[in-house]
């Protein structure tokens, strides 16, 4: 039995503000200090690998392999970025990643998952939860073993050597996102749906005009995650794409890494790999900054707040 947390709370009372005692002020200050301290320490440790990646990108070989490690490379070599990017057809790979792969998948996965999540959470129908568990269960099979039979299916459809096997299945729901959106849908009280139904709206209208806007933050999260996952995916494209010109960025990097690893001791192997890596995370950062505002800055999900 779920316990209903009461949302209809007593009307807001103005909190009496008494002058804080010295002890209270010290306590507040200590907490703030600890808070910022923890944040800064954590931030530094989180940033370390990224800092390493970016600085490695502009090193030369002696700097890369120096003991002790070089923290600030002086002199540094920004031309590594250009040289590494042009050593392969990374511009084409970027185009492929964005327009042939990530964008179509993001649109499809977000919409279709939202539809399915709605059906699994806000409509009551017999057997619903069982089917939902089935949906979740499909996440539990390691993809490595379905690789071959799935490939055979796509081969029979004639989709191999194109982006179709990578994109089209996204339009049929992704269990991870169905699960996530269902959780968010379930935080919306029944009353909202009931009221709309009483008003005579059909389910599709409720979905599109009421529910989706309410979980907008979750939708943005889903879109962002989908984009990132696709941006970084290399195994599926490796299996289905037969031409270098079709490769997305992540696969381009993997290919570059395998090449460098093969030859052994190529000049500027590591700096070039780090250069390309730095460049390909930049669009995601930009995306994140835009998306951040949407789903983080005080968007209310439920229609009813105190």
């Amino acid at each position, binding site marked *: 039995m779920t316990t209903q947390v009461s949302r209809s709370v007593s009307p807001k009372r103005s909190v009496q503000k008494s002058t804080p005692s010295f002890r209270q002020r010290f306590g507040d200050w200590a907490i703030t200090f600890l808070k910022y301290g923890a944040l800064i320490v954590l931030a530094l440790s989180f940033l370390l690998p990224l800092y390493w990646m970016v600085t490695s990108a502009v090193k030369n070989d002696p700097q890369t392999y120096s003991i002790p490690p070089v923290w600030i490379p002086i002199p540094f070599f920004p031309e590594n970025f250009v040289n590494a990017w042009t050593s392969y057809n990374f511009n084409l790979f970027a185009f492929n990643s964005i327009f042939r792969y990530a964008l179509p998948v993001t649109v499809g996965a977000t919409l279709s998952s939202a539809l399915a999540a709605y059906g699994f959470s806000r409509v009551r129908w*017999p057997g619903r939860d069982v089917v939902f568990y089935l949906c979740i269960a499909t996440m539990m099979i390691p993809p490595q073993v379905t690789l071959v039979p799935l490939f055979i299916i796509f081969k029979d459809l004639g989709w191999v050597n194109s982006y179709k096997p990578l994109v089209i299945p996204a339009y049929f729901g992704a269990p991870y996102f169905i699960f996530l959106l269902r959780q968010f849908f379930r935080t919306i009280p029944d009353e909202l749906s009931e009221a709309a139904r009483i008003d005579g709206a059909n389910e599709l209208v409720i979905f599109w005009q009421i529910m989706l806007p309410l979980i907008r933050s979750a939708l943005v999260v889903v879109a962002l995650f989908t984009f990132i996952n696709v941006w970084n995916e290399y195994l599926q494209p490796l299996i289905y794409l037969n031409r270098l010109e079709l490769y997305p960025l992540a696969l381009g990097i993997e290919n570059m890494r395998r090449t460098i690893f093969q030859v052994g001791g190529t000049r500027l192997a590591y700096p070039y790999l780090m250069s390309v890596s730095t460049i390909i995370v930049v669009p995601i950062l930009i995306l994140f900054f835009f998306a951040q505002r949407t789903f983080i800055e005080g968007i*209310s999900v439920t229609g009813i707040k105190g």
Partner: protein
Amino acid sequence: MESLIQNNPGRFRFRRLTRAETRQLLTGLAFISPWIIGFVVFTFYPVISAFRYSLTRYDLIRPPVWVGFKNYIDLITIDPNFPKVVYNTFYWVLFSVPIGVIAAFLMASLLNTEIKGRSFFRAVFFFPSIIPAVVVAMVWQFLLNAQFGVFNAALQGMGLPTIPFIANPDLAKPSLILINTWAQGSAIIIFLAALQDVPRSLYEAAIVDGASAWNRFWNVTVPLTTPAIMFVLTTGFIFGFQVFTIPWLMTQGGPNNATEFIAVFLYRNAFVNLRMGKASALAWMLFVVVVIFAVSLFKSSRYWVHYSSDE
């Protein structure tokens, strides 16, 4: 609302649906219809195929040969690596998932407070999870290296012995757990979104009632974010059991099979040892284990997850 199937033990009786119920059923099915089609075409057949393969010996080159349950039996009884692989996988799941979830929740909570430069800190905590696995492997290999890595350089600077993080069989898994915790960005975001949804009025009411910060955290924040916690925990377990890319790229299952997890072992069997049947059997055994875990989690969720809707 009466259910379609009467819960008489041993007897199922169907009754006709009311018009309203029929409409609900059709509506529900309509909404999930894209998923159903996708499931039938892209999931059902491959999964059944995988089961079929698990009952065969299949080298991907010649047609599969029926062997019955031999793959399963051999794995459990005579395979020299299976025990280690299972141990590795459970070790991973039972440590990395709870640590990751707790760490992500705490960081999200920290980020949810009034701090200057909130956007900046959020970006910082999220960055690691957007880096492709290939790059993560390369960067961390360098960072953790005994000769060239900054961590060991710092240790040496303090006069301490170096730590062979991923070169040592005993330290490899904990090192990977560390990296995994660093990359919990997506969990942090989900928790942040959920934390944002906790109505401010509840906090204010709690303050008025004299609740301390810890009290507010434990009795308001946590209960109301349990749906998100449930999600992150469940998916964490599901994907934790299938961990593959980082161990494959960074340590190739080593050193000395220390990071040979089930998915890694499976992959090696499928595409290196040409034992796709055995790999499929491993996958199905993993599947059963994950299902048991997930079902247990779902059943337990009744006791600790609070949803606002009863639907």
